[in-house]
C-alpha cells in the first residue's frame, strides 16, 4: 500500500515534513534547501542537534539558501504550510493539536535537546498519516524511536542511505530497527520531497 502511495507521488496527503539530523546533516540540508521548489504545500520542520547556544546563525544560514521563509520557532508559533521551521537550540520542539508549536526544556533525550525522537513522536501523535519523517546523517541513536512512532500512526518514513551520509550510524540504526519505509541518497531525497509538494512551481 505504501508503494502505491509513493508512486502516486503528490497524491500523498502530506501536511508536515519533519527532518531530523545530527553530525553531517547540515551539509545535506544545505543541498536540499536550494533545490526546494516553492511555494511548499506543507510545513517543513527541521530538528538538528546543535551546540548549546542561543544564537540564531543556523536559521540565518538556512534562509540564505532558499526563498521559502525560514523561522526559528518561538513559543506558540502557528504551524503554517509554506514555511520552514527550525527547532531552537536547547529546547525540545513539540506540536500541539491546535496547530501551534510548544517548547519544552526538560531533560535531554539521547543526550540531545532538541531531541529528534521528541519532535517525531509529537508530530506523529498530532499529524498521523499526513506526516513524513526524514532522518539524515548522524552519530547518535536519536530518531529511530520517533520514526517508528510515525509509522505506527500511519505516516511515511524516509532515511538517508547510510553510505551517502557523512556519519551513517543514525540512519543505519533506523534501517536496522525496521523504522524506514524508504532509503534514498541525497538526490533521491530531494526528488522525494519535491514530489510531496503539490503546489510547487514548474
Amino acid at each position, binding site marked *: 500500500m505504501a508503494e502505491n502511495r509513493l508512486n502516486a507521488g503528490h497524491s500523498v496527503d502530506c501536511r508536515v515534513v519533519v527532518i531530523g539530523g545530527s553530525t553531517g546533516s547540515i551539509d545535506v540540508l544545505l543541498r536540499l534547501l536550494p533545490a526546494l521548489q516553492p511555494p511548499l504545500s506543507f510545513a517543513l520542520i527541521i530538528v538538528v542537534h546543535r551546540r548549546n547556544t542561543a544564537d540564531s546563525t543556523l536559521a540565518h544560514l538556512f534562509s540564505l539558501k532558499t526563498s521559502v521563509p525560514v523561522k526559528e520557532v518561538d513559543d*506558540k508559533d502557528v504551524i503554517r504550510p509554506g514555511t520552514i521551521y527550525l527547532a531552537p537550540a536547547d529546547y525540545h520542539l513539540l506540536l500541539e493539536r491546535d496547530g501551534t508549536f510548544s517548547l519544552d526544556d*526538560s531533560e535531554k533525550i539521547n543526550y540531545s535537546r532538541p531531541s529528534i525522537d521528541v519532535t517525531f513522536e509529537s508530530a506523529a501523535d498530532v499529524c498521523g498519516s499526513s506526516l513524513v519523517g526524514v532522518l539524515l546523517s548522524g552519530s547518535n541513536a536519536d530518531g529511530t524511536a520517533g520514526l517508528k512512532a510515525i509509522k505506527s500512526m500511519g505516516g511515511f518514513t524516509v532515511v538517508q542511505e547510510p553510505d551517502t551520509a557523512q556519519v551513517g550510524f543514525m540512519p543505519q540504526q533506523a534501517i536496522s530497527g525496521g523504522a524506514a519505509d524508504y532509503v534514498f541518497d541525497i538526490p533521491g531525497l530531494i526528488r522525494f520531497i519535491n514530489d510531496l509538494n503539490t503546489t510547487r512551481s514548474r
Partner: protein
Amino acid sequence: MIEEEEIDLLLKDLYEVYGYDFTQYARASLKRRINRLWTLDKFPSFAELRYRVRSDPDYLKRFVEELTVNVTEMFRDPMYYRTLRAEVLPTLMAKPFIRIWHAGCSTGEEVFSMAILLKEARLLHKSILYATDLNPEVLESARQGIFSMSTMKQYSENYILSGGTTDFSTYYTAHYGRVKFNEELAEKMVFSTHNLVSDRSFNEFDLILCRNVLIYFTKTLQERVLTLFDESLAPLSYLGLGSKETLKFSSIQPRYKQLEGEKIWRKIG
C-alpha cells in the same frame, strides 16, 4: 501511550482530590511527562496509574514533581545575566530596597545566580529575593543551596561569560561531590510555595524573573500569569522571560518596552 481522554481523567482527579489544576498546561509536553512517568514507574495499565495518583498522597508528590519540568542551571544564557548586570541593576541602585521575585524557581540555581550578581553590584544587603514554586520538594532543595559538583565547571564558564570576574569557586564549599553555596548568599532569600495557576500576587517587585515557565502553559494561562506579573510590578520595574518567550500578543505588552536584544521588558506605562 496515554489516551487524550485518560489525560482528562487524570487532570480532573488532580484537581478534585488535591486542588492542582494542570488543565491549562500545554498538552503535548504534559502528555510526554505522563507517558514518561507511566514507563518509569512501570504501571501495567492506566487504571493502576490513576488509582495510585488518587489514593497515595506520597506518590502524588512525586507525580507533580515529575509532571513539572525542573531543569535549570546557573547563569543559563550568560548574555542575559550580562544585561542584568550592565543595564538593569544600575537603574535599581538608588532604591532603598530591591524586591525580586523568581517565579517558578525550581531548585534555585537562578536565585543563587541572582544573589551573586547582587553581591557583586554591592546591592545584596538591601535586596530580598522571593523564590516561589508550586513544588514544596524542589523548594526544600533550593533552600539548602546544595548543588552537584559536576555542574560547577559549566556554571563557572557561564559565570565568566556573564561578566563575572571573581573566582567562582569562592562562592561555595565543596564536599563529597557536592557544593554548598555560602550562607551569605542565601540570607536574603525567602522561599515559599506559590502556584501561578491559582495564587495571587503577594507583593510589589522591582524585577520579576520567570524563565522557561510560560512555555509549559497555554496562551490563556500565559495571559493570566502575565496579568498577575503586571499587577505585581512597580513603575519602571523589569520582567525577564525565557529566550523563546514573549510579551507579544499579550494584553500587557503596550505598557512595556523591551531591552535591546534580550527577553527583558521594562514597565513604562
